[in-house]
């Protein structure tokens, strides 16, 4: 007879796989299936975290570093004005980062001597169906038509030849920028235990109450029980000598710990840089460990679930060691970031002086991670003036999420603000609207923006916002009521009455709308059997 059946397996249910190297685990089938199922709404409703990695702040920082990289490439004679430089975004998700990035990049390039260098940002995913909604997204159309944006199917776990859909361009033979935000934390990786100077491979055992793994089941991950087994023998060679060197180094200097090696991420960068046959800049943002010192004393990885998929910490130190071993430049923050490690890796033997300078200025310190940490530590603020609230918006580059958090404050302060402050608020509304990229979130941004405009007496501009809301989301009682109030203020009483009645049709119990209808009917002299005198102060804007 062979080994005995273990009680621990019986108690753990059905063993779906036993002691499998992490990168070959069926866990990744669940991961892939999860991302294949997600539409745009997964990002809008927060199932997949993306705010910090797609907001205008990080996009602006990236754009500056990309521009610096292009300058470095130009100085080294790598740019050919007849060939586009591609910025390949892996796992484009909602498309929000691409929207923000291309806008900023376009502005920056236009102000430099590189303005005639064609640049195309390529949104990609392993599943073409995920990109289709972005291809028709209204906010992307102008940049798509102008050639600033394109699409490609790219499996980051196994990238092959990359060719864009629209212009049929091969992403090769030119400097390349790879953007990977919250991508490498979802790619297959391997786990090793360091014990007394030796590295041992760690296998994963998956058990469940049912005999079959159903990757398409949204609850598949929550049904699994994970356990880790360390091999007794030293780990065999990994293949790439640079990776073996990383593991050897870890075994030398780390006493007792477990380390993740981002094997698929390293292979991905390798292949893309090889195809480029030119300097390649990779901008990578993830939760992770930036330095060797962060890797001491770690246990098994925390598989962080989010809505059916999961993520793991990324070992930036391992990425860095491989890139350095291949003659590249590594740019990482000198400290351990709290929320997000933003790293830049330059492959291809380029003097990346300018790139490094802009990275240090914009991403390493005082960048997206620091801004997020400050926000988390100081929110909600005790009391803000309108100008302070507007400063927060500017600092966050008109990020919609920040606007939504500030909205109650803005609304409270708007009506009584000075004319100059109200002008600044109107400008802020314009900027937020301009930088907003809808991804199916629940909040009706146009309604919020329009309400602020109404509050400072800009009723016609408010009506345009309310019309935009109805065009995008259809009529709701709230937006019809808000529009009716704006028309009431403009003394367009007939239209106001029509709209407030439409609001009541949708929501008969809408008390504020009923009161407005009664006032309007009274003013118009239409007795509905319950006429009231119009309130002296009229109907001021109120929260949606």
């Amino acid at each position, binding site marked *: *007879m*062979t*080994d*005995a*059946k*273990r*009680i*621990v*397996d*019986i*108690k753990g249910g*059905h*063993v779906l796989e036993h002691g499998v190297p992490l990168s070959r685990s069926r866990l990744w089938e669940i991961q892939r299936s999860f991302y294949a199922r997600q539409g745009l709404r997964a990002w809008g409703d927060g199932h997949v975290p993306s705010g910090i990695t797609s907001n205008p702040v990080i996009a602006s920082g990236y754009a500056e570093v990309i521009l610096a990289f292009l300058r470095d490439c130009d100085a080294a004679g790598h740019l050919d004005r007849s060939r586009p430089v591609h910025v390949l975004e892996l796992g484009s998700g909602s498309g929000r980062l691409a929207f923000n990035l291309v806008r900023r990049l376009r502005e920056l390039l236009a102000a430099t001597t590189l303005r005639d260098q064609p640049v195309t940002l390529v949104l990609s995913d392993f599943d073409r169906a995920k990109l289709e909604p972005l291809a028709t997204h209204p906010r992307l159309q102008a940049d798509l038509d102008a050639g600033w944006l394109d699409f490609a199917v790219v499996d980051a776990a196994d990238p092959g030849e990359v060719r864009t859909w629209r212009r049929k361009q091969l992403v090769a033979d030119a400097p390349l920028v790879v953007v990977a935000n919250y991508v490498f934390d979802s790619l297959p990786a391997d786990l090793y235990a360091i014990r007394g100077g030796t590295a041992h491979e760690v296998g994963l055992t998956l058990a469940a109450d049912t005999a079959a793994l159903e990757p398409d089941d949204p609850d598949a991950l929550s049904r699994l029980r994970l356990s880790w087994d360390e091999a007794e023998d030293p780990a065999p060679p990994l293949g790439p000598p640079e990776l073996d060197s990383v593991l050897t180094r870890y075994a030398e200097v780390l006493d007792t710990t477990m380390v993740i090696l981002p094997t698929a991420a390293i292979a991905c960068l390798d292949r893309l840089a090889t195809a480029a046959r030119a300097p390649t800049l990779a901008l990578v943002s993830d939760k992770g460990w930036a330095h060797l010192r962060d890797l001491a004393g770690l246990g098994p990885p925390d598989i962080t679930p989010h809505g059916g998929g999961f993520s793991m910490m990324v070992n930036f130190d391992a990425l860095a060691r491989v890139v350095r071993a291949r003659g590249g430049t590594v740019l990482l923050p000198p400290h351990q970031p709290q929320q997000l490690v933003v790293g830049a890796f330059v492959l291809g033997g380029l003097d990346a002086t300018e790139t490094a300078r802009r990275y240090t200025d914009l991403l390493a310190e005082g960048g997206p991670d620091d801004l997020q940490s400050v926000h988390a530590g100081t929110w909600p603020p005790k009391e803000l003036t309108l100008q302070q609230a507007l400063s927060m918006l500017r600092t966050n580059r008109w990020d919609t999420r920040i606007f939504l958090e500030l909205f109650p404050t803005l609304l409270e302060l708007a009506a009584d603000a000075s004319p100059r402050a109200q002008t600044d608020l109107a400008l802020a509304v314009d900027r937020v609207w301009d930088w907003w990229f809808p991804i199916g979130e629940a909040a009706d941004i146009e309604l919020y923006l329009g309400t602020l405009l109404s509050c400072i007496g800009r009723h016609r501009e408010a009506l345009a916002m309310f019309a935009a809301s109805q065009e995008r989301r259809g009529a709701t009682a709230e937006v019809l009521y808000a529009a009716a109030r704006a028309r009431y203020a403009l003394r367009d009483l007939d239209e106001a009455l029509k709209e407030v009645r439409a609001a009541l049709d949708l929501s008969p119990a809408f008390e504020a709308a009923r009161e407005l209808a009664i006032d309007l009917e009274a003013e118009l002299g239409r007795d509905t059997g319950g006429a009231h005198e119009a309130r002296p102060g009229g109907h001021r804007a109120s929260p949606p």
Partner: protein
Amino acid sequence: MTTGIATPLLDGLVAFLRDDGWPVHLSASTVPTVETRCASATAEWTCTGRTFEPQGQVVFDSMVPVEVPEAMAPAVALLLTCVNWGLNTGSFALDTATGAVRLRTSMVVSGETPLLVPAAAKALVYANVLIVDRCLEPLREAAAGRMPIEQALELMDL
């Protein structure tokens, strides 16, 4: 089996054990018999499945890895009697001649052509080995005279 006689119950038990990752050894015996092994965190033991095909009976025994010295036999017999009182299924037995302890779970499958479906086999086998796993350490301590049977019973928490 080498007898050439149909043994659907044994076949069902063997199929379950194989599919569930148990080691399987078919032994030559007058009664259709399969042997397997189970391991807890601290011990490993042999299990034997036997089927009495005409009667539709399936019997699964764990040979509990404990040795009961002769002097401790009365105390352990009392302990096992109390344990059996608390069990919903199965029962322990002590061979006073050898000091061996066995846990048996069994079932009867009715019908003209009785079949042992995997779910039934699983219930029979898992109930058996999980009871052994739960009772083993206190039983060992009591058999060695290191623990009063009252404390052993309390630890088994039946």
